[in-house]
């Protein structure tokens, strides 16, 4: 057997920049004929399935120094974009402080793919299944614009980066996961120290696919918050995505229910608002309506379980 059709075509040149500035310059030089690549797993499947053509130049980001590990920074856990998903999956700092990200990564492909694929590639795709979990922790991204490194909330970066033209101008370097403030600090902030013992964190991440394992997502849903002993929501983030949908935070809904008690009325409201606010992309396998109701059911069920004390504290 010989090469497949794609391999029989001219093979791209592969560039190995040492710095973000060099990678950026290469991208400027080759424009649409050059593509950033890290693990290359998504690109490879796109080439094989004919979704996109093999470019003339690959700009290999894995050789940029200092982007392939996790470290504690001043503002939180810094996850280098070139860290493999499997390294993230097995990292104890990530699993201890950001368990929903660890869980989200567990559901991405299989270990053999995760050894190649990177967290930066997953996020830069704008549709990766780690994104909803990262949004649940209010993650930021550090990216290079050709001159300086910038820090932006992931929730604000995604809409810009997912637009093809803008995406080419932004080189993703790292993710920053801010450590959650402790419940003690939360109570001081609320000027009510008695609340310390009465509040609990809750959270959940779900990926619904067409199969149980190793499946593309249909819906990803993440919720992260704080409840008082009498089920009043003190803080909440809700993030939804899945399939070809660029994940989003439902900040309108978060504001509406912050400070409210979890009861039947509130759960109905949450369900109805998710149906209204979430705008998933449909495909041949699952309609937008199915994805909306799946997402709404997941969030409502988890909120109900949290109020009943049936979720593990984070």
């Amino acid at each position: 057997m010989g090469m497949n059709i794609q391999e029989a075509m001219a093979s791209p040149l592969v560039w190995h920049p040492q710095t973000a500035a060099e990678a950026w310059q290469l991208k400027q030089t080759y424009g649409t004929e050059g593509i950033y690549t890290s693990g290359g797993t998504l690109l490879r499947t796109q080439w094989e399935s004919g979704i996109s053509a093999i470019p003339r130049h690959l700009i290999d980001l894995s050789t940029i120094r200092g982007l392939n590990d996790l470290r504690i920074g001043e503002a939180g856990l810094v996850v280098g974009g070139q860290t493999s998903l499997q390294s993230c999956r097995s990292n104890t700092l990530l699993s201890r402080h950001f368990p929903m990200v660890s869980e989200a990564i567990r559901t991405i492909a299989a270990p053999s793919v995760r050894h190649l694929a990177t967290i930066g590639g997953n996020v830069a795709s704008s549709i990766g299944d780690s994104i909803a979990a990262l949004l649940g922790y209010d993650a930021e991204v550090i990216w290079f614009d050709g001159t300086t490194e910038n820090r932006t909330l992931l929730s604000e970066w995604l809409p810009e980066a997912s637009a093809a033209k803008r995406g080419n101008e932004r080189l993703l370097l790292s993710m920053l996961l801010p450590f959650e403030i402790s419940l003690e600090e939360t109570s001081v902030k609320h000027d009510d120290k008695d609340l310390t013992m009465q509040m609990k964190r809750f959270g959940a991440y779900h990926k619904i696919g067409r199969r149980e394992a190793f499946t593309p997502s249909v819906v990803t849903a993440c919720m992260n918050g704080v409840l008082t002993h009498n089920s009043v929501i003190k803080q909440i983030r809700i993030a939804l995505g899945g399939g070809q949908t660029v994940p989003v935070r439902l900040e309108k809904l978060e504001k509406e229910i912050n400070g409210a008690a979890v009861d039947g009325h509130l759960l109905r409201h949450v369900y109805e608002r998710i149906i209204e606010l979430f705008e998933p992309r449909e495909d041949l396998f699952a309609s937008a309506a199915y994805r909306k109701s799946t997402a709404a059911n997941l969030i409502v069920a988890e909120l109900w379980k949290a109020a009943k004390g049936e979720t593990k504290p984070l």
Partner: protein
Amino acid sequence: MSEEAVKSETPYVLRCFVNGKEESIHTTPAARLLTIVRDELSLTGTKRSCEIGRCGACMVLIDGNAVNSCLTMAYQCSEKQITTIEGLAVQGMDPIQQAFLEEGGFQCGYCTPGMIISVKALLDENPDPTDDEISEALSGNICRCTGYGGIWRAVKRAAEGRRQTT
């Protein structure tokens, strides 16, 4: 641009170690490792199937980690240690292969090399895996004929064998 940015030219010479032997392979930088091991090195135990990283038939070890060779490009293998299914049996049958034989962990056998490579990576890292860990480690290997019962027993037997010999 600084002088430090280097490029992998076409044609490209991949220097790596395959089953312990140093190799210099004339190829292209984006050629798939699957093509290299099967067509350039004639190591056909590594199987070609889905070609998009789903089935696991093309699994090899790269520096001890199980990786889909259909997704791996030549330049990503530079200076790496690559082990194919042939490399496991250099000094006689690997105990994992023996366990698959004894437990009937195969039927047509097409997925078996990939399965064994994944089990090798798992047990080298974690000699006493839980059921969940076995399930996760093999989640990238698909078998369409055994029903997985024999495969599961083979993994358990191989793990048990390791525990008894260490």
